[in-house]
């Protein structure tokens, strides 16, 4: 496995008026590995995702994907370059069924037809059904997304990511609120993809469970990366714990 990072942020800065959302951020996402971004609320974790996908433009700094700059991209273009992203508030297509949610994500062409003709269409439908089965939502295939329970919605959100051919996943609190059994199933699904060459970065709030899912951790506070490295080292650092739990000097 090569060592060149799939995604690299170099001295990325972003301010909103007086608020520093990203402060000289240096971050590498190595390939085939799950990196977790942790930190207290408002630390700038979601902002980093937005900067990577181009929803926000950095004030300065460089963001590269496999060596090529991501600056000037937008949400749509980042998808075309192989980045898939989930949201903390899920953003499912609520009035559409589970099947439609998963299928639609593969249909990117703006024209009233997709490339590849009937054969490709059939292949997409089969892939959608297979993915729905992988996440265990076959029973809800034709239910509307808005009618699903919380855990099912989380798995649908994951299904939409799974079904794309993206090689970099940005998951924003993908498993928060799941019960232990569902969480375990989730972790296995996510980590199982690493063998397929996927690189994953996820934002996670719950420090107790984060070490079960990630290989590396980056700790953010007020837009600054305070530490990055092995989970055990980071999680056992008392200074970081103090920041996380709100004691500041």
């Amino acid at each position, binding site marked *: 496995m090569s060592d060149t990072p799939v995604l690299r942020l170099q001295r990325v800065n972003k301010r909103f008026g007086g608020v520093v959302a990203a402060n000289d951020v240096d971050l590498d996402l190595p390939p085939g590995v799950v990196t977790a971004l942790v930190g207290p609320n408002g630390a700038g974790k979601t902002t980093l995702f937005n900067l990577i996908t181009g929803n926000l433009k950095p004030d300065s700094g460089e963001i590269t994907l496999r060596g090529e700059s991501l600056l000037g991209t937008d949400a749509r273009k980042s998808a075309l370059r192989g980045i898939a992203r989930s*949201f903390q508030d899920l953003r*499912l297509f609520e*009035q559409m069924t589970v099947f439609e949610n998963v299928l639609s994500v593969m249909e990117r062409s*703006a024209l*009233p037809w997709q490339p590849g003709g009937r054969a490709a269409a059939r292949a997409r439908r089969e892939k959608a059904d297979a993915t729905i089965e992988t996440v265990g939502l076959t029973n809800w295939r034709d239910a509307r997304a808005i009618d699903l329970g919380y855990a099912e919605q989380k798995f649908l959100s994951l299904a939409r990511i799974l079904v794309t051919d993206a090689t970099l996943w940005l998951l924003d609190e993908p498993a928060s609120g799941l019960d232990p059994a569902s969480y375990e199933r989730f972790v296995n699904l996510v980590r199982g993809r690493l063998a397929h060459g996927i690189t994953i970065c996820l934002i996670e709030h719950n420090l107790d469970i984060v070490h079960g899912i990630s290989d590396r951790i980056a700790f953010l506070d007020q837009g600054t990366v305070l530490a990055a490295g092995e989970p055990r080292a980071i999680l056992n650092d008392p200074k970081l714990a103090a920041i996380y739990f709100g004691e500041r000097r």
Partner: protein
Amino acid sequence: MQGYILNLLILVSISGILATSLNFIIGYAGIYSMAHAAFFGVAAYTGALVAMHVSTSLLVTIPIAMAVCAALSLVISLPSLRVRGDYFVVASLGLQMIAFTVFSEWKEVTGGIGGLTGVPVATLFGFRLASLESFFLVALTCLALVVLIIYTLVHTSFGRSLKAIRDNEVAAATFGKNPIVIKTIAVAISTAFCGVAGVLYAFHISFVNPESFTVDQSVFIMSMIIIGGTGTVFGPILGALIIHLLPAGLTYLTFLPARDLASLQQIIYGAAMVLLMIYWPSGLIGRANVKDTWAK
């Protein structure tokens, strides 16, 4: 009597086309256009002018009107879809007002307030559609074709993309869809169908003037969708039927003064809109989730 019924059914067919095409963007895409009457008018004037100077064949007038409407839709789509969907409502209202001014003032082309009269009889493959029966068949066929095309579109990837954008535009873009292009195409398709309706209308009543294409007409079309339901492909047609039958029904209530019937109709539609929005807003499935953009 038969003439009266046929006339009514032709108007219902034309309104059905208008309502179905508007529902395509409101119900399935969450794009609220208030300019449908303007496009209807543009199509009617185009159809009348082509019929009077070039050809009375439906196979010539309809495609030309469709192209003109679709091209004109780019005038509102391109600027406003770039920004936010709600700007589209404003832009469409603005276009509606400008269109009315153009219809009334561009006397050399539109005949001004008096409009264009003496639109010749429509022809199809050389056959003159002089009778109400034959015209009704044509109108009904057009309605059926429009419904078929929209039904098909809704069930393709394009329809899914539209619905995805309606439900959550940010997520749709994040997964690689191009909301601006998709919405622009949807609006162009919708207005192209206005083109069909406008030409049929011009031929049917043989004259065209600005009065038929005001905001009130947009109200009519909106009411058909709201009353008939936005979630289905046939709802708008049902709405068109109800809205056209209502005046006939009202004439039976002889205690109502005849000259106020049109206004009473509109009052009923307006009141229905208000009450439906208060008590049954889910009847309007196509509403976009604007809360997360305006509220910030």
